């Protein structure tokens, strides 16, 4: 299939999971194939036919939003996963220099996933674990109060046929076309840390979906910076996540960021096509696995790795592990119910472009994937802060040629 069509299909299905994602992709591919064939018969070139067929389908974001509302939010939020919430604040950096504080909501992972966040093993990761690992929700009204003084219009909009009228949030930054993102289904609620029910109808949306959607706008420079209470900017508009009393810690924020990337098939595709690099510490053998097994619950790998050649900022290391290999077995006892397994960990790279990596540590999470084509024990380094540039996505895979590894034992 044409590259442009491939890109469209990836975007249109990016928030869907497993079998459902493949089915929607195949259905849309069949639709495109039918329309392209018809236009070719009518005399159009292949390129023109594809462009016309894609234009008919409309924005992949809107197709994706409609599907996601059906398959992602209701399924997971309705599953009774143990969500715990803590109130934080979105602090607007106003042009006047005055900071305006408005409440937002940050949902911590379920108890099972917290174990993973703490660097311990997860016996049976499930789909809801992915979801909760990357759960970071903001409130529409809080965002509105933070952004409107900076000339940004925040409003509800709708997708005909995709559900209720309040399902989509439209955010128009100065000089940019609207960024759309889906609101949580009004039919579901989450349980806060204090046991209070928080209805999604109050206008909550996933920060990651919003960040990803915004970063695809060529006219908008999107970037995240800082570790604790990171700043987010969209062109000249910016705000900070968290306050001193209710901080959004860098460890949790960037761990969730990495998990959010892994939930989208784009990250898997990058790892597949790019190949990645091998961390020396993961060249493990049976003896090493036994040693690792004894170390469960504490630091599993004592080998540190130094990256050289990256610039200062926050990065993520994503490592695919052989599902039934000795390392995966050491980390996750019992049968692993999937064909791909990842260890992800955020890392801060210093001014001189170096860092020391301890795998895993308290910021590591272990997640399952759905692709069987990954090279086991292969890693990629992903830049999270700074942003890759306008219209180029919300993370950047660092080419292996730009990285020098130095193992330390």
């Amino acid at each position, binding site marked *: 299939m044409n590259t442009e069509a491939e890109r469209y299909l990836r975007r249109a299905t990016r928030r869907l999971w497993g079998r459902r994602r493949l*089915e*929607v992709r*195949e*259905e*849309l*591919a*069949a*639709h495109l*194939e*039918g*329309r392209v*064939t018809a236009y070719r018969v009518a005399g159009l070139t292949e390129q023109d036919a594809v462009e016309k067929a894609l234009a*008919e*389908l*409309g*924005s992949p974001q*809107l*197709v994706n*939003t*409609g*599907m996601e*509302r*059906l*398959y992602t939010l209701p399924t997971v939020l309705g599953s009774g996963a143990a969500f715990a919430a803590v109130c934080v604040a979105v602090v607007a950096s106003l042009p006047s220099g005055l900071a305006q504080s408005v409440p937002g909501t940050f949902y911590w992972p379920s108890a099972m996933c917290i174990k993973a966040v703490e660097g311990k093993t997860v016996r049976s990761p499930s789909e809801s674990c992915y979801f909760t690992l990357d759960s970071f929700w903001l409130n529409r009204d809080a965002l509105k109060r933070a952004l409107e003084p900076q000339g940004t219009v925040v409003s509800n909009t*709708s*997708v*005909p*046929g*995709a*559900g209720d*009228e309040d399902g989509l949030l439209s955010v128009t930054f100065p000089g940019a076309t609207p960024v759309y993102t889906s609101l949580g289904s009004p039919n579901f609620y989450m349980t806060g840390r204090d046991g209070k029910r928080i209805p999604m109808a109050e206008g909550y949306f996933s920060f990651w979906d919003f960040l990803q959607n915004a970063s695809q706008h060529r006219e908008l420079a999107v970037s995240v910076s800082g570790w604790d209470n990171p700043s987010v900017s969209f062109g000249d508009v910016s705000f900070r996540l968290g306050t001193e009393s209710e901080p959004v810690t860098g460890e949790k924020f960037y761990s969730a960021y990495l998990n959010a990337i892994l939930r989208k098939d784009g990250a898997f595709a990058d790892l597949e096509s790019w190949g990645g690099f091998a961390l020396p510490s993961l060249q493990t053998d049976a003896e090493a696995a036994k040693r690792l097994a004894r170390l469960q619950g504490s630091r599993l790998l004592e080998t540190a790795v130094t990256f050289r050649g990256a610039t200062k900022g926050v990065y993520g290391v994503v490592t695919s592990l052989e599902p039934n290999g000795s390392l995966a077995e050491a980390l996750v006892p019992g049968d692993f119910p999937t064909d791909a397994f990842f260890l992800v960990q955020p890392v801060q790279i210093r001014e001189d472009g170096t860092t020391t990596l301890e795998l895993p540590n308290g910021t590591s999470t272990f997640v399952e994937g759905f692709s069987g084509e990954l090279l086991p024990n292969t890693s990629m380094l992903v830049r999270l802060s700074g942003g890759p540039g306008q219209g180029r996505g919300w993370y950047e895979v660092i080419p292996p040629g730009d990285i020098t590894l130095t193992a330390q034992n």
Partner: protein
Amino acid sequence: MSNGLLRDNFDLVLLAILEDGPKYGLEIIAEARGRTDGYFDLKEGSLYPALHRLERAAHVTAEFRPSDTGGPRRRYYLLSESGSRYLAERRAAWERFNGAVGALWKPNRGGAK
């Protein structure tokens, strides 16, 4: 037609089209356009989420069938028993509404008292 009217009756339009037998997305669009002389010009980007919503509500079932052109398999939608009942209810409600509005359009023979 106005977006509001189509949005409110989108399910009804789709289920009515599937009443004649299983169809895939492109066929549904062509059928809607053809049977209404272009009045219902369904947007593809809205169609698929709506069809999946109907499937999730168990008003339709879906199955993949091979394409006759050798391309990717097509996903056919079939009206379910629940969908037939839902369509009949919606249709009856629509006809009642239509009749009532039609009565309002007619001149008031009794005249104002």
